[in-house]
Every structure is written in C-alpha cells, then in structure tokens.
C-alpha cells in the first residue's frame, strides 16, 4: 500500500509561497482604490430571492408543478370526464342554417327535443337531447302547456329495414299505406328489384312524410314491418327561429303600413319615389322572411322518415357477431387495442403541451440559476 507524504507537500508549498514577497504598497493601493469606489451595494435582489427565501422558491416550484399537472389533467378530464355521444342528426344552431353532425354533451333534463340513436342489432338505444337557443329563452314564466302548444319541432328519421324473400314489394306498399293512413304522403321512392336468375337482391329507399304528431307512430309501424337493423331519429326545436321570423315579419309589416301612410300624405314626386323605394325594400324583405317561415312551417308540420329497405341476403354493412368465445375474445382484444391507441392519440396533445410547458419552465429556471450563479461569482 502506498500513502502520500502530505506533510512534505505542505512544507514545500509553504516554502514556495514564502518566496513570494508581499510588496509594501499593495495594501495601500487597495485602500486607495476602495476610497474612490462606490460603497456597498448589498446582495443582489435575485440572489437574495433564490438563496435566502428558500420557502418562496419552493412555493414557486410547487406552483409551476401545479400548472404542469393542471395542464395535463384538465384536457384529459374534459375529453374523458364528460360523456360524449355522437349525434347523427342535425342540431339547430342559427337562423337558416342546419348544423353538421356534431358531438354534444348529454343533458339529462331536456324533455322536449332530442336524438334517438337505436341499433337494434346491438340492442342499443341512446337518447341524446339536442341543444337549442330557444330552450333557455322559454323561461320559467311560460307554462309548460303554452310552451308545448306553441312548440315547433322538426323531426327526421332513418330506418334500415330488412325483409324476407318475396316480401319486398308488399313491404313497400305497406310503408306507403302507413304514410297515407297517418295523413302523410310518399315524398320519393327509389328501388331496385332483384331476380333469382341474376342472383341479385331487391333494395330501395322510400321517403315518407307524415304530420309531426304521427311521426312516432309511423316509426313504430315501420320498425315492425320487417327486421329493423338501424333506427335513427332526431328532433330539433325550431320554435325560436319560428317566433323570430314571425316577429320580424310583423315588424316589417308595421313599417310598411307607416310608409303607406306617409306616401298617402306626400305630394311631391321625389318624396313619393323615395317612399316607394323604401316600400319595395321592405316588401322584398317580408317576402324573403315569409318564404323562410313557410319552409319552416312545412318542415315542422311534416316529419320525414327515410326507410332503406333491403331483402334478406343483401348485406348492408352487417355488424359482425362473434361466433364463439375465442372469436369474441379476439374481437374484444382488437377493440381494446384500438381503444388504447385512441387513448394514446388523445393524450398525446395535452402531454406534448405539458412537456413543452415543462421544458419552458426548466429553461427559465436554468436561465435564472445561471444568472444567479454568474452574479454570485461576480460578487465573489
């Protein structure tokens, strides 16, 4: 084992250092320099913050950690905490517009409007209330009875129906009868008749329009006319839009009456022409709004049901049923894999954001730390 001769090194170093003779005026130069230099500056604020207020620094770190956790948790909570249901029908958004299929949070208290998505094959029925601008406007003062009586609801639905062999034509006739019996009519029909010789199956589409009050009954009748593989219905409350149009038309009519009165009192040609111009403009607006009102009236008076009819054997996106346990397990495994992948994609965004935030915080902290270190070394 070898040991280092520390005493020898110490002695030699001291001897070497003693060779350095301290110059006589060195200390005086420093004192002179000190007399003409500014006084004490005290510790820098940043340094004192970082070094002396460890509690504050810890608080800042904790706050930063909270921000990061919130940045991760809030988007995840929003994306997964609230149940979201895919709505296949339109939800009324604004005047003269129909919304595209959208996803809205489920609200359990709405009884007046909603979307029913039924998949009879899967045995699943979901009722999704749709949002409406007028729902809040109805207010607590209006009684339920008056609300229901003045209600304007636009109802549409789609049913996929499968019928047995040789029953295609009779089912079509039966559907037509359903509509006419309920006071409605057949809006359009499109069908393809298959033959055994060509090994094709019959299929077609029939659009039925019935009074709004008979819609539910019609849906029920059609569902039992064959084997319904899919039933999708939706209802949009357009009362607000309807009332709004009525009010605007009323206001314009009052304006028109006023202008007519003014016109009757005007004597000059220029004045008459000017008033006439205003009247033309008002009349044009009234007609536009009236057309919209008529359309809305028609849409809310009659509900539309589109029935896709097909013969058994004509496959219309049949849902796969697992044949046995292994098959079922395999399907569930695939489903689980897809769900996991979806989840990964869903959290990737918030996670990326959180990482960026964390990186920014780390960079900031590093900058502060380096500045503090630099300051400290300058002080020392």
């Amino acid at each position, binding site marked *: 084992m070898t040991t280092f001769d520390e005493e020898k090194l110490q*002695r030699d170093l001291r001897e070497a250092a003693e060779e350095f003779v301290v110059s006589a005026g060195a200390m005086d130069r420093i004192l002179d320099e000190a007399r003409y230099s*500014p006084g004490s500056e005290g510790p820098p604020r940043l340094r004192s913050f970082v070094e002396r207020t460890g509690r504050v620094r810890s608080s800042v770190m904790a706050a930063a950690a909270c921000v990061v956790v919130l940045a991760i948790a809030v988007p995840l909570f929003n994306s997964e905490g609230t149940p979201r249901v895919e709505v296949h029908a339109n939800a009324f958004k604004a005047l003269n517009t129909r919304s595209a299929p959208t996803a809205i949070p489920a609200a359990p208290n709405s009884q007046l409007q909603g979307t029913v998505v039924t998949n009879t094959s899967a045995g699943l029925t979901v009722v999704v209330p749709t949002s409406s601008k007028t729902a809040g406007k109805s207010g607590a003062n209006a009684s339920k009875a008056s609300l229901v009586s003045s209600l304007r609801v636009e109802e549409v639905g789609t049913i996929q129906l499968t019928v047995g062999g040789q029953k295609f034509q009779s089912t079509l006739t039966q559907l037509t009868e359903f509509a006419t019996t309920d006071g409605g009519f057949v809006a359009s029909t499109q069908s393809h008749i298959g033959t055994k010789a060509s090994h094709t199956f019959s299929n077609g589409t029939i659009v039925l329009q019935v009074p709004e009050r008979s819609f539910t009954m019609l849906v029920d009748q059609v569902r039992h006319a064959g084997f319904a593989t899919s039933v999708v219905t939706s209802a949009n409350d357009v009362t607000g839009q309807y009332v709004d149009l009525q009010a605007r038309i009323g206001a314009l009519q009052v304006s028109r009456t006023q202008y007519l009165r003014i016109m009757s009192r005007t004597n000059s040609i220029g004045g008459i022409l000017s008033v006439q111009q205003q009247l033309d403009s008002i009349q044009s607006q009234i007609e536009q709004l009236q057309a919209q009102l008529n359309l809305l009236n028609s849409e809310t008076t009659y509900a539309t049901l589109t029935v896709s009819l097909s013969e058994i054997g004509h496959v219309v996106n049949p849902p796969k049923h697992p044949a046995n346990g292994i098959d079922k397990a395999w399907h569930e495994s695939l489903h689980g894999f897809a769900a996991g992948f979806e989840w990964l994609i869903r959290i990737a965004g918030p996670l990326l954001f959180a990482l960026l935030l964390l990186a920014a915080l780390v960079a900031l902290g590093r900058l502060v730390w380096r500045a503090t270190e630099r300051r400290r070394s300058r002080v020392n």
Partner: protein
Amino acid sequence: MSDAVDVDELRMWLEDGYASSVRTAYLILGNRPDAEDAVQESFLRAWKFRDSLVTGSSFKPWLYRVVVNTCNSKLRKEIPHRHRRRSDDELDDVAVIEDRIAQVALTNDVMTALKDLPAHLRIVIVLRYYADLSEHDIASVIGRQPGTVKSRLNEARRRLALHPALRSEAPSPINFRKESQS
C-alpha cells in the same frame, strides 16, 4: 463617515488576510502580477459586497472563496487570451516580460508540478496544503460537495506523485512510501 469606518474595516481585512490570499493566488495562478491583480480585485469586491457575508458565517472561507473565484475567472478568461495574443503577435510589453520573469522563478519543482496540474485540481491542493482548509471548507470555497473535494484531492495527489519533476528529485518532496500490509 461610514466610508471611513468601512475602509478601516478593509484595512483590518487586509492586514489579516492579504499575505495569505496573495500567496494562495500566486500558487494558483503561477505568477506574481496576476496574483496581485486577483487579490486586489478580490478584496475590493469583497468589501463592495460585504453585506452578502451572512452574519455568523466564517470570514476566512468566504474570503478564500472570493479569491478562488477571481483566480478562476482569470484562468478562464484573461490568461488564455493573453497567451494566445502573445504567441500570435509576440508583443514585448511589460506584462509579457513580467510573466517570463515569473516563469523563470518557477524553478521550484513543486511549483512546476503544481503548474502542470489542471486548475480545478491545483486549487484544491493549494487550499488544502497551503491554506490549510478542511475538506468541508474547501467544498464551501469552491461550491462543490465534500465528496467532490475528496476525489479531486485524490486525483491531484496521484498526479503529483507521478510528476517527473517530483520523482527525479532525491529525496523527493512528494514520494510514496511503501508500506507492507500487515
């Protein structure tokens, strides 16, 4: 009034620690002008920021810390540039002459070996064996963990023991004693 009091305080500091500080700086930097510059700068800084000395903490390690940081700054920024400039332009100015005189003065083998050590190892050796600071104090002076100081000291000792300037000398100022393991 307060300035006069402060300068008196500085005078006390100087009388107490100037000689040891300048010699420490000399051992670290290896030449007289830089050592004097560094210590002058250190004392002025220390006096300027004297409020940052936390009451109750030891003055000696704090002052050494200022000195070592100033020396480090010179080793990192000034001296390499000066050497590069000298090799490029061969300026024959006073500083260069003084440097050369100082280098000639490094006849002592210990100084030669010390000069060949990397700065971070040289500093711990000087603080440990000349300034006689404990490992804990050295850690606080250089702003590292005591474990780091220990490992640096070990590395510095190993290098010094293997340095030719020290091995050729008989008897060597730094040598290894063979000890039989019992």
